[in-house]
């Protein structure tokens, strides 16, 4: 078996004890009083990269040199905050003279080189055994637009962007509590990506936070470029079809979850937050539920949960009925369906697989192409192929209806991850249905629900509050009760404080009581 294992695994050292490779301790070079020495060392350390700029200058008639990497520094900032004040300087202390927000003094060169990579400019002055690193990073931010794939009708239209500080700021803006805590990590041995977990100190369960902290700290990989990469390192079961960490690009969704005692993980370069621990039902919630009134919100939410069942079972049900139990179709519908399928040469399972495959292809094609062409693909696929396929006699009309309904039902789910998993799950259920009819579907569903019962996300049951059953929490999971009814936070994240609001009200004559 070892042979197969090696064949499938590209990790040569899988059985070696994983030692955390300690960063090699380089001999730290102190700043030399001669400019040339310093420049030579830095040039050497950066392997003579050609975006290294050397700008000689004079400060209080002493010669000096400014070094920076032109690719990460903003020349405008260098001019405004370094060169201009230095030229007009009267005082001796450089830190007073420079107008940049961040000026640090260093006496050795190694840390300075790391800082240069992050957009600092370094000033060396002749005869001094220290240098000044000045932050002049070039910042190119896109605006905090509404995320394209998580649109909401009502509510805020902010979205996370690729910058960690901006994302943190978006969260802080909404929670002005001193309990909001940010813990920073630097991840990836090569990429050195900044990441941060955010939580409310007085709500999040310390066990959960510790668990997350441990899992993040244990990651030892060269490349943790984005949060999505990190996700698979820290989730409970990567082979489960269900996502156990919620990815969202909406600050309001993150804020809502933080206030339920969950933890969010933000990563530099990733326009999304990872929220954990979450339950199955979190993937079926959308900020719109909370921004509309409770009846409408509940209706939409029930509709989405219903769509879960449709997306998984409808094609399977249809296949089972057509190949095993056609007796269950009521009379008139029976003859209509019979008339449609009579001339189809293939059994329904092949019909369904063919159509499902076609839809998945269309979807993928539509997504890859630029939007005007993408729409054309949708029309060509939906109308032309759909019609032709029936006329040729490959697929019947009822099957097209079923497959289309299923596709729509799987798009209703607000989370892409969950949408993928539902689309995946429907295939085994379809195959079971084609083998064992209704019994097959039910065994498939039994396995799925058993898996949901088994699954945990950071020590909390994944299928809560349906299993373990906690009817109290249903009012914010299956439906959305009015806010004044949601006296307690859901139990699944095990928050420190359960009560979240006090349903007392002023005035009388309303339905609150």
């Amino acid at each position, binding site marked *: 078996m070892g042979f197969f294992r090696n064949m499938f695994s590209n990790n040569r050292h899988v059985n070696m004890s994983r030692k955390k490779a300690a960063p090699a301790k380089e001999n730290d070079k102190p700043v030399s009083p001669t400019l040339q020495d310093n420049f030579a060392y830095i040039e050497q350390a950066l392997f003579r990269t050609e975006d290294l700029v050397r700008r000689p200058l004079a400060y209080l008639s002493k010669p000096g040199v400014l070094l920076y990497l032109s690719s990460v520094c903003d020349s405008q900032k260098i001019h405004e905050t370094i060169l201009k004040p230095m030229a007009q300087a009267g005082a001796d202390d450089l830190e007073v003279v420079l107008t940049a927000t961040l000026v640090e003094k260093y006496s050795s060169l190694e840390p300075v080189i790391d800082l240069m990579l992050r957009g600092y400019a370094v000033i060396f002055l002749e005869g001094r055994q220290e240098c000044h690193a000045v932050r002049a990073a070039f910042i190119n931010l896109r605006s905090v637009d509404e995320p394209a794939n998580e649109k909401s009708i009502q509510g805020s239209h902010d979205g996370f962007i690729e910058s960690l500080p901006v994302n943190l700021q978006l969260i802080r803006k909404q929670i002005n509590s001193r309990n909001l805590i940010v813990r920073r990590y630097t991840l990836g041995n090569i990429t050195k990506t900044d990441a941060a977990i955010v939580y409310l100190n007085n709500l999040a369960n310390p066990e959960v936070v510790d668990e997350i902290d441990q899992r993040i700290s244990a990651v030892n990989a060269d490349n943790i470029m984005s949060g999505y990469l990190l996700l698979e390192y820290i989730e409970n079961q990567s082979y489960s079809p269900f996502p156990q960490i919620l990815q969202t690009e909406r600050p309001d969704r993150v804020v809502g979850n933080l206030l339920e005692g969950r933890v969010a993980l933000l990563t530099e370069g990733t326009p999304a937050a990872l929220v954990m621990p979450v339950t199955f039902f979190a993937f079926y919630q959308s900020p719109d539920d909370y921004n509309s009134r409770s009846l409408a919100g509940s209706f939409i939410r029930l509709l989405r949960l219903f769509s879960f069942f449709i997306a998984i079972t409808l094609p399977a049900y249809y296949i089972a009925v057509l190949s095993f139990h056609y007796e*269950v179709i009521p009379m008139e519908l029976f003859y209509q369906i019979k008339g449609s399928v009579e001339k189809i040469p293939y059994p329904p399972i092949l019909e369904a697989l063919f159509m499902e495959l076609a839809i998945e292809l269309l979807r993928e094609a539509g997504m890859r192409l630029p939007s005007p062409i993408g729409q054309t693909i949708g029309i060509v696929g939906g109308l032309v192929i759909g019609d032709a396929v029936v006329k040729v006699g490959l697929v019947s009309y009822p099957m097209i209806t079923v497959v289309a309904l299923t596709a729509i039902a799987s798009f209703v789910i607000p989370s892409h991850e969950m949408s993928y998993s539902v689309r995946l799950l429907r295939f085994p259920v379809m195959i079971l249905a084609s083998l*064992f009819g*209704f*019994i097959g579907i039910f065994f498939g569903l039994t396995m799925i629900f058993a898996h949901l019962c088994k699954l945990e996300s950071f020590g909390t049951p994944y299928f809560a509050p349906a*299993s*373990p*059953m906690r009817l109290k929490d249903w009012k914010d999971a299956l439906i959305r009760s009015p806010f004044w009814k949601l006296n307690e936070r859901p139990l699944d994240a095990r928050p420190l404080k359960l009560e979240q609001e006090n349903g007392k009200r002023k005035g009388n004559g309303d339905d609150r009581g």
Partner: protein
Amino acid sequence: MASGRGTAMIAAKEKITPGQFMMTVIQAQIGVGVLFLPSSVQSVAFNDAWISVILSGVTAFLLILVMWGLARRFPSVTFLEYLPLLLGKVFGKTVLVFYAAFFILECSLVLVLFADVIKDWIFTNTPTWVILSLALIASLYIAQENIRTIARFLVLTFVLIFLLVIIAAYAFRDANILYILPINQSGFPSILKGVVKSMNSFYGFEMLLFCFPYVLGEGKSILKATVLANIFSTLFYTFLVFTCLIVFSPEELKVIPQPVLYMVKALSFTIIERADLYFMTIWAVVVVSTVIAYLFMSSRTISVLLGQKKHRRTAPYVALFILIISLIPHNQEMINVLQTYVGILSGALLVGFPLILLGISYGFGIKGKEQPG
């Protein structure tokens, strides 16, 4: 101690609430009996079958009391661990072998009857082993886990029992209350015979012996949960038997082995017809719940016999064994023989033995340690 866990505390992660325990017991009790009970009891107790079912419920209640009394004296260990304490190591183990055999046979019986119905009603040509392995794979997947996960799953599928009730209640349209009159026509002896026949459907409360230390809360609340579960099952079975008795005439019940299915077969609604197919599918899941409970109990017992700590490893082999046993009976006669064996074993192990054990425990003053904390 053979089990290796000894008096080790049960981790908080494995505890279940009394509510979860209640549903676990209900799910273990309600199983194949849904379809078989009405006609099998009716065959001996005639139109007083429903009285027999109620009396069986009462009997089950008494047995629960005995088992609870026994379990209460050993609040922190399971039956498997205190049995050797009461009977001595060698004899205790011998008795455990019988228990293991009983659980395995009961599980096989459930599966045999399940396959029988499925073969009669939908899959005439599908080989039995395919149907059985499908059910066993699904059960094994969850029965391997600890009691907490099992309880969670059983709570989830508990809803399906109500669906069965709703579908069956539809048959009241064709009901004729006159069929059950006159009451007590068959006489008390045949009612008692009916009690014996229907007892098999009530087994499942022996989960009490296995789960007692895992349930949170006082001994009294555990008793309450078990009794409530038993009441629910009794009401459910009585409802079904009663419905069948008033829908079918006594003569018809004689020739219809699964009256509940037959009853719903002719129902047709606006959007679906042939409600029996849906009924049977839901019933299949209810049966799987029972199989889960028995598979769990048998693999726990066997793990203890083999000195294994966890039952996760043993469960697949036990399942395979059960599959092989279930494949042996291929006609009604052999099923009846199996039924007799299970009946004798259950009489001895679930009625006789707990009483003896309770006597020994009180007589010799053997008690377990109080649950710490």
